[in-house]
């Protein structure tokens, strides 16, 4: 199988003063390249920790994690930064655009950190056109609607041709109509470019549009549900 994500026995322990909080208790699963997966679970289930770990924002306490052929679990901070830059595109609930920069400037950011100098602007423009914002290049975030801002964020996520897109409640701050548009945009990008899409959500309607749901409960995979193929290990 062509696995883009291979997680084996992931655990994560947070030290909260004297107590150890176990956010992940040995989670193992794989995600195939080009798959659309949603991660669900009630709050406190380890959903955010899972997203941070899969997005290489944080290291697991133990276990193995292969992302697109690279062993992430033991990397240094700077190596992780490089992996995030090349392999992961983030879409956040609250867009997280820099208000000082124009739309195209925001989309350019990952390319800047990739050390790219030539063709940066062109690639950023191409990404913006792909999300349907070809006519809003030089607008700043506050001149754009919520849906348009999230489109800019999506463009920023795909500009570096990542292996996976991590979307954390991508429609959470949008009304249902605009949310649907963003979902369609993400699903289309998956279809057209074959980019693996991982959506963290608690909205069953969103989860229903994905090929597979990974459910978490108390830091472990919840295998009692069988939805869209269920959370097969």
């Amino acid at each position, binding site marked *: 199988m062509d696995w883009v994500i291979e997680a084996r026995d992931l655990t994560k322990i947070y030290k909260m003063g004297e107590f150890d909080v176990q956010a992940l208790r040995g989670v193992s699963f794989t995600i195939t390249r080009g798959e659309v997966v949603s991660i669900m679970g009630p709050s406190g289930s380890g959903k955010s920790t899972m997203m941070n770990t899969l997005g290489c*924002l944080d290291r697991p306490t133990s276990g193995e994690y292969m992302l697109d052929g690279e062993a992430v679990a033991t990397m240094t901070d700077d190596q992780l930064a*490089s992996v*995030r830059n090349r392999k992961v595109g983030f879409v956040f609930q609250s867009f*997280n655009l820099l208000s000082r920069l124009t739309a195209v400037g925001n989309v350019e*950011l990952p390319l*800047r*950190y990739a050390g790219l100098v030539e063709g940066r602007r062109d690639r950023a423009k191409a990404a913006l056109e792909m999300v349907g914002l070809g006519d809003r290049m030089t607008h700043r975030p506050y001149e754009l609607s919520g849906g348009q801002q999230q489109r800019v964020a999506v463009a920023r996520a795909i500009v570096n041709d990542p292996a996976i897109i991590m979307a954390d409640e991508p429609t959470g701050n949008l009304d249902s109509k605009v949310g649907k548009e963003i979902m369609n945009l993400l699903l289309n990008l998956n279809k057209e470019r074959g980019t693996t899409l991982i959506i963290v959500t608690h909205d069953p309607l969103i989860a229903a549009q994905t090929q597979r749901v990974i459910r978490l409960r108390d830091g472990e995979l919840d295998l009692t549900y069988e939805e869209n193929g269920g959370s097969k290990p």
Partner: protein
Amino acid sequence: MSFAQALLEAIESLNGNKMRSGLTVLGIVIGVAAVIAMLAVGNGAQESITGSISSIGTNLLFVFRGGPEQGGGGPPGRGGSGNNDRPLTLGDAEAIADPFAAPSVAAVAPAIQGNGVITYAGENTSTTISGVTAAYSSVRNMELAEGEFINEEHINGRMSVVILGPETADAIFGYHDGIVGETVRIEGQPFRIIGVLVAKGGGAFGSEDDAAYIPFTTAQARLIKRGSLDQVDVIFVQATTAETVTSASDEISNILRQRHRTPVGEDDFTVFTQQDFLQTFESITGVLTIFLGGIAGISLLVGGIGIMNIMLVSVTERTREIGLRKALGARKKDILLQFLTESSLLSLLGGIIGILFGWLIAFVVGKVAAATGNNFTPIVGTDAILLSTSFSAIIGLFFGIYPASRAANLEPVEALRHE
């Protein structure tokens, strides 16, 4: 990310918060401007003083009554009375003038000095009255705008003649041309003006332009009473060349020790060379410059702390932005570079504005000094400029490092969660 990009981003970021950036820069501006202006004033003062001392003549020596211990430094002569020191006399001056005992001495000019009021047609002014000999004009490099200087005839005849400085003449006549031949009254006694000096500007010992010179004998007998008829206040000595000043000083000391019968080390007179004055004043102005520079440096330090403060606020404010940048692939050194560039840019900007501002202050001080008739020009040295720019850049870096490293070491997960 390249440095040019970091620079662009820093400009963007500082531009986005103009008011705050401006106020932060202000601290450095004031500090650098203070350093530049203070050093300029200090240097200017030094130049002005050493310049006026040099204008006295490099081969001039002063002999005062009173030993170095009692009299202290500087020109103590008049303050050294009231003890057992023997006063200097005309005889001392003549002995010093002996070419065999003191081959390094070219000319000797004893003088007594006092204050007096000069009146002419209802106008009056108070000035320094010096009783001098004929050699005085050559020893002190005096130039006459008109008339002639006091000669032997005037001395021997105890004649009532006077040479006026141009300022003194201005004070009572309102002008200083064509007054030779007029008669003024000094302390009520009539004196005929026989010469007027060329204006020289301010000197280290008050303006030489505001003075009156009369024959030594006349002063002794009628104006400036001293204990004995041949007592003098100060003896000006001209060495043959600038190189023989030291040997002249030794020769004078030996002669006076013999005449005053004082053992070595218990001199009751002081020989001062122009070099001594220079050294004294240079050390005074040196201390002054360091003192002023130190105060200015402290304000620069305070400015640096202001930068650190603002950068810390900025880092806290932009925690989320830092988290996002890290999520997008920024490494530690990218963030570090970004914030260091911002703080350095702030201080560099402050440095440049401060230099211009300090220059302006120095210029205005110079103009004010010129307008009030002081011969004083502040000097903005390249050393001051280099010192303050490098100091402010270092301050920007130093006080930027802590906030920047705090930003660089933020955990991306924590930073992204920050509200």
